[in-house]
Structures are given as C-alpha cells and as structure tokens.
C-alpha cells in the first residue's frame, strides 16, 4: 500500500543480491583453477619464486582464504579498489574507473534513449494499425533487426559511415554525405567521445555524434524488442472495456490514444526497458571494442585477456552494483507509472 515501504523492501532485497554476486565473483577468481598470482607474472617471472611470493603477498593470497575473502569484501564495500597490475600498470583503480565509466554511461544513455524513443513509438504505431501493411513492415523490420549480431552490425555501420557518398540528380543538385564532416567535425569516426566539454553546445554535439553510431548499434537489439512488446501492449489495451467506455463517453480520438491507450500500454514496457539495460552493459563490450571506445566494458575485456584477474573481479563488482541500481530505478519508475504497484509486493 505504501509506495515508500515497497521501495524500501526492494532496496533491502538488493543487499543480499549484491553480496551473493560479489561472493560468487570472488569464488570464481580466487578459488578457481587459475592462480591469479601466476597469471599476473610474465613467463620468466613465474619461475622466480621470490617474484611469485611477492605477487602473492601483494594480492593477499598468502592468507587463509576466509581472511582473504573478508578483506576483499570489506575493501569493495568501502570502494577501496586498489591498484592495477598489468593494465595501465600501477594506476589507481578508482581513478581508472572514473575515467572510463563516463564513456560507457554516455554510450548507454544514448542507447537507451534511441531504443526507447524509436522502438516504443514504432511499436505503438504498429499496434494502432495492426494487421495492415505498415504493421507487417515495421514488425518484420524489428524482428530481423533484433536477430542481427550487434558486433556485426557495428562493423557494417562503421564501413558505411567511413566512406563519403554523393547523391546527385544530373546537374541540378548534388548532396554530399560524409559522416565525418556533417554537423560537428570529427577527427575520426571511431574512438572515445570527448566528454570534457559537455557543457558547451559544440562539445555536447561532438560527443553525441561520436557515440551515435555505437549507440544505434547497442540500442538496436533492444529497439526490436521494445517495438514488439509495445505493439502487443497497445493491442491488448485497445480491447479493454475501459477504452470502450471512454469512447462511449465521447472522448476525442486524440485523447483516447494519448491519454488512455498509450498511458496504459507503457505499464508493461517499464520492466522491459530496464531489463534491456542489463543487456546493454554486457553488449557494450563488443560495441566498444569495434568502435574503439575506451569504456569500462572494453577495460573489462582487456583485463580479462591480459590476465589481470583482480581487476576483472573488481570491475565485475562495479557491474553488479550498476545492474542492481538499474533494478531499483526500474522499481521506482514502476511505482510512478502504475498506481496498483505496492499492493501485492512483487
């Protein structure tokens, strides 16, 4: 009944989830078949017992496992994330994250925006005109789009944007399309966006344009899904009695669509939109790699293949926090949109 109480309960439930997730991560990294210490050292150094021991001590692996576990968890809880071993050797992990994370967040922000503001209206459009040609085209498009591997789409998009095109109609006019120069100038079409000048119009536009292709790719998968579910939601709501009653009351067609149908169709979309956010976090690795964006997903991947396992564990913890946080935002949104929430609890 009380929305605050419901939110409080959800918040409380998140704590064991984070704890379990972090524990599983610790188990995989430090109790797994690979020895994190030996992974950190190069080939030559592994045979050097002194170097090996030093690495072990630095990692805290000479302690009994339980002690190590407690230390590690308490460090994470206060965000004392230590230093890196191999990647950008010796840098403070906190600083590294603060440097890399904003780029991923910027990418994620635009991906969600695109997915929602393109996918949902398309879905509503298809739902309102269901079983017509435009519905079929839109739905088919959404389905195929959703089946494309996003890293492949990224490659294709990069190729398309990398060349300049000319649309000419004889001598009358010629339209030049060069992604690099349209709007704000980009020195290269791939690479990290420069987020230092977001407060200026020019800086904002440049950073947006830089990340737009990647955001389109990342958002495209969710877009297809949101379209499909938006369409279904609209179809369902349209058939409800209260829509008929509103029509019988004489509500105008526009108000019927915007006030009654769409507002209700949004309700089932909220969990989808936010659950897509999880996938964005995972998929960002691939997209960041193709587009050369130095975000936190790329960092994770680099750490993994280079063997900096402690960093991998720490980053996973950050991801867990992000996802649980998104879950909570989803619950918050849900309570705002649907007044029935809070009654049954979950």
């Amino acid at each position, binding site marked *: 009944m009380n929305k605050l109480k419901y939110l409080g309960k959800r918040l409380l*439930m998140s704590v*064991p*989830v*984070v704890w*379990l*997730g972090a524990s*599983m*991560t610790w188990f*995989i*990294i430090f109790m*797994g*078949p*690979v020895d994190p210490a030996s992974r950190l050292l190069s080939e030559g150094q592994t045979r050097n017992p002194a170097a090996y021991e030093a690495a072990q001590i630095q990692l805290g692996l000479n302690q009994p496992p339980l002690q190590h576990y407690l230390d590690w968890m308490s460090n994470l809880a206060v965000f004392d994330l230590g230093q890196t071993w191999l990647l950008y050797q010796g840098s403070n992990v906190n600083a590294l994250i603060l440097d890399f994370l904003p780029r991923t967040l910027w990418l994620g922000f635009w991906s969600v925006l695109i997915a929602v503001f393109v996918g949902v209206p398309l879905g509503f459009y298809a739902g309102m005109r269901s079983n017509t040609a435009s519905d079929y085209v839109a739905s088919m498009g959404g*389905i*195929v789009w*959703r*089946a*494309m*591997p*996003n*890293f*492949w789409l990224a*490659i*294709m998009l*990069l*190729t398309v944007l990398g*060349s300049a095109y000319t649309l000419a109609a004889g001598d009358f006019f010629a339209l030049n399309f060069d992604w690099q120069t349209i709007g704000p100038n980009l020195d290269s079409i791939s690479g990290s966006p420069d987020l230092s000048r977001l407060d200026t119009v020019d800086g904002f536009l440049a950073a947006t344009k830089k990340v737009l292709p990647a955001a389109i790719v990342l958002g495209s*998968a969710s877009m297809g*899904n949101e379209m*499909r*579910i938006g369409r*279904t*939601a609209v179809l*369902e709501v349209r058939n409800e009695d209260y829509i008929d009653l509103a029509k019988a009351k004489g509500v105008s067609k526009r108000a019927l669509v915007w006030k009654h149908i769409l507002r209700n169709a949004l309700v089932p979309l909220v969990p*989808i939109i936010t*659950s*897509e956010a*999880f*996938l*964005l*976090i*995972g*998929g960002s*690795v*691939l997209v960041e*790699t*193709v587009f050369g964006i130095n975000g936190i*997903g790329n960092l*994770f991947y680099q750490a*993994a*293949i280079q*063997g900096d*396992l402690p960093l*991998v564990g720490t980053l*996973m913890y950050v*991801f*867990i926090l992000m*996802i*649980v946080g998104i*879950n909570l935002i989803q619950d918050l949104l849900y309570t705002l949109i649907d007044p029935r929430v809070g009654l049954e609890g979950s």
Partner: protein
Amino acid sequence: MARAHETTSGTLLPTNSPAAVWAAIGAVLFAAQGGAFFGFVVGVLGDLLTVTPLPGAAFVTAVEAAVEQIPTLLSRDVIPNDGYWNGSRWVGTFLGLPPGLAWGIRAALVYLYAFVFAGWVILGYRLYRREYRTADWTPRDDMVDRFRGHKWGIFGLVVVFMFVVMAVFAPVLGPTTVDENMRNSYSNEITYWDSDAEAVQTTLVGEANLASQSRGDNPERVLPMEYDDFGRFHPFGTLPSGQDLFTFIVSGSRLSLVIGLLSVGLSAGIAASLALVAAYYKGRTDLGLVLASDSVMAMPQLLLLIMLTTVLSGTWLAEIYSGGFVLALIFAGTGWTYMWRSLRGPALQVAERQWIDAAQSFGQRPLTIMRKHMLPYITGYLLIYGSMTLGGAIISIAGLSYLGLGIAPPTPEWGRAINLGQDYVATGSWHISLIPGLLITLVVTGFNALGDGVRDAIDPQSDATTEDGAAGRGGGA
C-alpha cells in the same frame, strides 16, 4: 481398435497396410544415408571424449574409422567435385561436370534427401494419427493444426531445419573438407590445370591457399561463386588465409548447433527442475531461488562468460571440443536464470491447480507429482523459450569467438570469420564478414520465428509481454 484393414487410402504396393509401405520407404532412406547419420553421432561423441581420460576414447576413434567405411549415397566419393581440368575435359568430377556444378548437385541432393526424409516423418505422423491411433482427437492435435497454419512459424521451422541439415551433413556439403583445406593443408595435395604451362600440375593445398587469399582488392582474391586459379570452386569465396569460406561456415555451424543444443538442453533441465521444485514447495524455496537467480542475473551474462572462459582456459575442461564443452557449461550455468524466470509463471499456475492438491492428499510422492502432473504443462513453454534461447546462444557464441575467446582458434566458428574479415568490408573482399553475419541473422530469426509459432500454437491468446525479452538476446551480443 486397429483399423489397419480398412484404411482410407489405397496403396501402390500389393499390401493393405500403409504402415508397411511407410516403413519400407524409411528403410530405403535410412540405408542410403545411414552411414552419414552414424558418422555425425559418433563424430560428436568422439570429439567430446578424446580429451578425457576415459577409456572409451580409443574405442570411439576406432568406431569412427569403421563408420566412415559404410557406403553412403550422398558422399564425396559418389559425387566428387574435386577433380581437375586436363586441357580438354574435367577429370575426377561427377559425370565430368565442372566442379562448381558437381558441388551444386551434391548440395542440392543433400537438401532434397533431407526434405524427403522430413516429409516421410510427417507422413508417418499423419498416418499414425489418421489410422492407428485409438483416440480420435487429442488437445495436441489442435496445437499441431494451429502451427500448420502459422506461416511465420513454418518459415522458422524451415530455416531451422535447413540449418540443422547443414550442421549434420557438414562434411558432405562443403566443396572440400576441414582436414584437407585447413588442418592438414600441407599434408594434402591437389591436382590442377596450370594454364601458363598448359599442363596438369600438383601442389600442396597449403600453397594453393596462399595463392587464393582474399585480402581487400588484391587480384588473387576469390569472391563467392568463383573458381580460384587452381580449379577449385568456392561457393562463398575464400578467407584472408586462402581457406574456403563455405567449408569454414558449414563446419562452424555444426559447432554452433551442438554447443547451442547442449547449453540450452542443460539450461532447460536446470530451469525446469528448479521451476517445478520452487512452484511445488513455494514459500522460502521460491524466495531463495529468486535471490539466487537475481544474483546470477546481476552479473551481465556476456561479461560473466568472458570472465569464466578466461579463468577456465588452459584446464582440461577447455580442451574438449575446442573449448565448446566448457562454453556450453558456462552458458547453462549463466543462462538458466532467464529460462527459469520465464517458466516460473506457468509452473506456479500449474501448482495452483486442484489436481495437485488431490495428488498430495492421497500421499503421492513430490517427485512423482512434479514429473507426472506438472511437467507436461510447462513443456510447451520449454519449447518456446528453448528455441529462443538457442538463437541467443548462437549469437553469443559468435560474439565470443569474434573476440577470440570461447572456441579456440583455428577451429572454425562464424564469429571468427566476421573477425577475420572485418578490415575488408569496404573493399573487394566484402564477402568475408558479410556472409556469416547474414547467416547468423537468418538463423536466429528462424529460431525466434519458430518459438513464436510454437507459442501461438500452444496458447493463441498468450502475449509477448513476458520475460522472454531477455531470453532471445544471448546475454548482450
């Protein structure tokens, strides 16, 4: 109530039993290709077992060799395509046709056989339903009929079927074999017509590959449906290493399918058991499972995959099937959560039914209740979410191999082909990245369509607003 003697259709042969005709057709079909079927099964088993210290490994290899001796109709020996031009005609190809045509015939025949086989199965089902089954009608009939009219679902089924055929018949479908073209290219020779010397020459396959590389706009590049300088036909062109892309793709499809099936099967098993247990016991068991699955889901699947593959690489587990086995395990371990979430709803609904209470009241054992009274009601949903998860798994596997993780190079996998070709997309060698990507899109669309079709057949009023949004996405790829 066998009505075998009053069948509604006549038969061509002088027997009165359609079942006998059907069985005879089946025997013919099976005899023609039995060797290939056995080869597939034994081959997969062998791959899985060769690295384990189990004693069966040597035995399996011996069986594999023996199976290969079984004559089959549609094999490389009967319809060969790797002959050569000797100045006046083609030698060593099927009917003296150009290799491209011979390959095309063989591939077409393989698919023809597959569809005939499928038709035979369907015919058998219809025969059974019409003549031999005691019940006049079961609820499943309605589902099957609804599926039959569902164009989108049928499309999905056809695409999936063709993909499975590609995987099963991979050794026969390619213009050459993985062994000859890729793994042992310097131990195999080919004969070809050297137009400069106007004579028949031989060379190592590896050397021939080096001269057929597709790297951008270089003149030696081989585009789809072209011959290279050595008289070899490449339906999909060649890779930057000169290897045949089509053979790469079909053998990669086998890997994707097997790993996909394995992981989805395991996932489904875990998810279904947990869903039934949680729905039956409810209360704290359910809560605990929700907690556990939330925790696993709190770790992004792709990242978890990367983490686990890195951690487990170099172990004996990762040797099996070129890393495919451990991949399947990891997939199952991380993917069960989405399926479980999707099955939880239907399972809880079934648990509310009164026949469950009735069974409990007369002392039926919990396991039996779950198996007999609850499981049949969620198998439909298992099919739906299973097929969608399979599509997602294929994308994830491709994504991982694109990154160089998961399947160890040089084993063929579709994602790796995309990686190998990514620098050349804007050039004359555009085919290397484009074709595998298109194929992935097609196959995944097929799986999703199949899932949609099954869902509409099982419950025409259901909708898509459940958690399957996550199930069909492969964790982020």
